[in-house]
Structure formats: C-alpha cells, structure tokens
C-alpha cells in the first residue's frame, strides 16, 4: 500500500499546526514578560484550556471512528438526513445547547430522573465532566463527518479487491482502514482541539465554577470587560492564531489523496457507484 505519502503530509500539517499553537503559547509567555507576567490564575486557565481541549478532542475523535464506520458501511433510509443533521450541534446557539444538555443530564434532567426511579445514585454534570460532555456533544458529529469523508475517500475498488482476496475484517482494517485513519485522525483531532481552545460560555456554565476558566475568558475579561488594552494583546495573539488556524483548516486540509486514486484499478467487473457497491458482508 502506498501509504507513506499521506502519512507524511498528514503528520507534517498536524505538526505545523501544533507548532503554531504551542509556538503561540510560547509567544504569549514571551510577550507577557515571561511566565512570571502571568498570574497564578492565568496559568491555571492555560492549563485547564489545554487539557480539556486535548481530552475533548481525543474522546470526540475516538468515539467518532465507530460511528463514521457504521455510517460508511450501512445504507438505510434517512442516512443522508442524519449526516446533514450531524452539522446541527455545531451551529446551535451555545445557550440552547447548554440548556438542552441540562435537560438531559442536569439535576432535574431526564437521566437523573431515570436513575432515581430505579434507585441508583444521581450524577452531577457540573464540573470538568460537564465541560467534556458538552464539547463531545458539539464536536463528535463534526468528527464523524470528517472521518466519514476519509472513509468515502477510500475507493470502492479497494474494498472489492479485498473481498475478492477473501480478506477478513481484521485484514481490511489493517490494510485499508487504519492507513486511512492514520491520515485523517490527526487533522480531526487538531480541528476539535482548536475549537475547544476557544470555548468559554460552555466551559464556564457547565464547569461548576472558576476552576473551569479558559484562556478565552481571560481574553474577554481583559479586553471587553476591563478595557485593559495592553493586557489582552498576548491573549489576543493566542486567540487569533488558534482561530485563524481553525478558520483556514476545513478548506485547506488535504485529505489523504494518495489513498484515493482508485480509478487505476482496471478489474474486469463493471464498476458500481462509489461506496454504494460495497460487498454486503462488509
């Protein structure tokens, strides 16, 4: 399999974006006069922002793989609509999403109602778990759509060839799916990570208190609330770097193209529609 090229492109871009972000954080520290220029609370905010974004991105990307796989493999009524609806959480007003999550997971939510009814202890959404839950809610559908594109980028001929060679699912995973995922997942992870870096309202409302302070809140406080135009500069830098990274990402990320040139396969069989012609056992 010619997987060397997509891997190197994927890794190079992921690495470049990561360097952009981490480099920016370093620049923040430098502009702010070293890390001593940041207060204890600023450092906590940076730490919280980074780890919640990393965990949210990891969970979103990991959970999206089986969902995308199922959507890639199955054809059923309403599949197109479902894929369209996966775009909905991302454009939902934040407060609507927060109140929606609370209607399910909140103290008086449906889940706790059900748990209480069967005599189980109730769960609390307010805390880091709420922040992660909300971020996964927002970003899992996005990840599914991105990974699904990767799956659909694998030419149907390859799967047919695999079928004709009597590949077991494990072999298909090894030769077709994992190389594709290795190319796609770093980008998906990074996209979600960047989105979660700029979270503010959700993180605070579900975070249960100022422990859930993100860098975005620090920017807001400095610039829009304190009118301290000197102070947000390093924060603004950080924000604009990460936001522009996020903005330019979806259009410019090259999906692993070397995986895609499936039109070279000249098997004698008539070609069926891409994707739709996957073997039934698959």
């Amino acid at each position, binding site marked *: 399999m010619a997987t060397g090229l997509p891997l190197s492109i994927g890794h190079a871009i992921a690495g470049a974006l990561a360097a952009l972000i981490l480099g920016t954080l370093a620049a923040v520290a430098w502009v702010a006069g070293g890390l001593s220029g940041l207060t204890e609370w600023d450092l906590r905010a940076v730490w919280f922002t980074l780890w919640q974004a990393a965990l949210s991105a990891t969970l979103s990307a990991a959970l999206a793989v089986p969902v995308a796989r199922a959507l890639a493999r199955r054809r059923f009524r309403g599949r197109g609509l479902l894929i369209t609806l996966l775009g909905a959480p991302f454009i939902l007003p934040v*407060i609507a999403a927060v109140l929606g999550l609370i209607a399910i997971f909140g*103290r008086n939510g449906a889940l706790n109602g059900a748990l209480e009814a069967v005599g189980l202890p109730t769960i609390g959404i307010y805390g880091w778990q709420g922040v992660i839950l909300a971020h996964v809610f927002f970003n899992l559908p996005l990840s599914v759509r991105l990974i699904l594109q990767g799956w659909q980028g694998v030419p149907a001929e390859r799967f047919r060839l695999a079928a004709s060679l009597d590949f077991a699912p494990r072999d298909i995973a090894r030769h077709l799916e994992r190389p594709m995922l290795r190319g796609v997942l770093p980008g998906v992870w990074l996209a979600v990570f960047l989105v979660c870096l700029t979270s503010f309202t959700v993180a605070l409302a579900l975070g249960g208190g100022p422990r859930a302070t993100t860098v975005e809140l620090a920017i807001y406080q400095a610039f829009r609330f304190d009118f301290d135009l000197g102070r947000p500069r390093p924060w603004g830098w950080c924000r604009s770097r990460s936001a522009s990274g996020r903005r330019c990402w979806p259009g410019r990320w090259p999906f692993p193209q070397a995986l895609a040139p499936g039109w070279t396969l000249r098997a004698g069989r008539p070609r069926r529609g891409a994707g739709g012609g996957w073997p039934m056992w698959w």
Partner: protein
Amino acid sequence: MKFVLIPALLLATPALAQDRVLTVYAGDSVTSEWGPGPAIEQGFEAICDCDLQFVTGDVLPRVMMEGEGTQADIVFGLNTDMTARARASGLFAPHGQDTSDLSLPIAWEDDIFLPYNWGETAFVYDSTRLENPPASFAELLEAEDISIVIQDPRSSVSGLAMLLWVKSVYGDQAGEAWAKLAPKVLTVTRGWSEAYGLFTDGEADMVLSYTTSPAYHIAAEEDDTKVAAIFPEGHYFMAELVAQVAGTDQPELAQQFMDWVLTPDFQATIPLANWSLPAKLPEADWPQVMRDLPRPAKTLFLSEDEAEALRAPALDEWQRAFR
C-alpha cells in the same frame, strides 16, 4: 452607482432634516425587541427632528478604542462600577443635568455619567421550591442544601456587583464568606441570561439577579412564585448610565438627548421596558407591580474609586474560595 443613488435619496426625502443623525452606541440588550431601544428611538425622533441611529455591541471597549475619532454622539447603557476607566479617558462631556432630586436610594453627584435606571442585586428564588428561604445574608451563608447559580465577576456586570456586594457586607471577612458560599454555588455563568435560564429550568434554588426581576414574572407571566430574598445587611446598588461624547459633531442634539433622559416622557418607559426602576420619577407614577415589590431597607454602594481599588483583591479572594 453613488452618483445615481445620492440624488435619488435626496429627492425621496426632501423635507425631512435627515442629515441630522444622532449616533447612539448601546448594548445588544437595549435594541432587542423587548429592550427599551425601539421606544427610545421613537420617543426621541418625535421631538428632535433628527434620525436616531443605534450602533449595538460592546459600548465602552469600542468607544475607548475609537478614541477621539469615534462616531458615537451618545453612549447608552454603561454600568456603575465600570466608570473609572471611562472617565479617565476624557472622552465624555458633562451631562448638565440637576441630579439633586433623582428617585435613587443614593445621592448622585457624578457630572459626566447620568443614570437612567437602577436596581439592586438580589438572590431570586422560586417560592414553590424553596420553602424556607434565608432571611439574611448570614442565614444564606449557613444554609444547607441550597443551590445557587451566579454570574462570573470577570465577564458580567451583575457578577461584579455581587463581588462588591459581598465585599461591602463582609469587608475583610469576604474571603470567609465566599468559602461558605462556594459549596452552594452550582455553577458560575458568563452572563445573566445563562444563569437565569438555569434557574427557571429548575436547576438551582436561587439565582443572582435583581430585586426587580420578580416584576417581570408577575407582569408578563402572571407568575408570583419568583421572589427576591431581601436581606437586612443591605443590597448593592446598580444603575445604567448614559453619557455624551465630548467630540460629538452633533453637540446640540446630544445635549437635547441628555436633557430628555430624565423627563417623565423617557422615564415612564423604563420600568416595563427595562424591568428596572426609573432614575427620576415619583414613586406614585411607577407601575403598580414595581410599587408592590419588597424593597431593601439598606442600599450599599461603593464609590467608583473604592470599587476600582477593591476589584482585583476581591476577585482574587473569590477565585481562591473556589479553587
């Protein structure tokens, strides 16, 4: 295009003096359909022979960034507690109004920023869910099994007022007070609407809001179960302010607007459009629902300089209580 359009527009409105435009920077909440903006625009245009145009967004940061070159003639919707830096910018001109007989619980001596409404911070509860509401701040601190939603003092004016409220009541003991409050705080939100949404959804027993909040439920929803807990320790004063920009290119219009703000014509629209109390209107002229609200016996308010000086240490205390 321009050359074609401009004469066409002039022909369309020949008699109106629409070249007189008063640009008013205001917060988003002012111009929303339930805010006082539409009534203000209509009311002023009826007397000014001009066009009042709202520009919405973050009022103060925008004016401060634009500096002398700002397009604003009037800034509308600033908050007490945040005037120190605005004043220091020197961008604003005196309002020229007599503020000796305002209907405020405090004396108002500011010659730049003019209050057009006011209220006091309070914890609002649902009487169907909280049977024994705390009767004082001290009782609230000791209460068990009460959940509260508050706003973040770093992103919300009501959150900042709460910080100063606790500081005014407890002074050096504010840190201990927050340590007792923190376990009861279910969560902290970016702004008032998220917190109030959580409260009305039944997530929390109490929410940080205003003494006038129940009036909305009574008047608009015929719901009298939302009640502000009145504490003898006192409640913290908040007012929304208006100021004219010194470098305005419409000084007469801007002054006319400032003169209009304290008239009964303007003030009568405040209670039910803004759900707050009017800055200059005899209590007999308030809507019944506002007159009937329980009111604190004691009003707390820190001067601009005190608030500015206390803010950073109080914020540190607050964050420490939640760490």
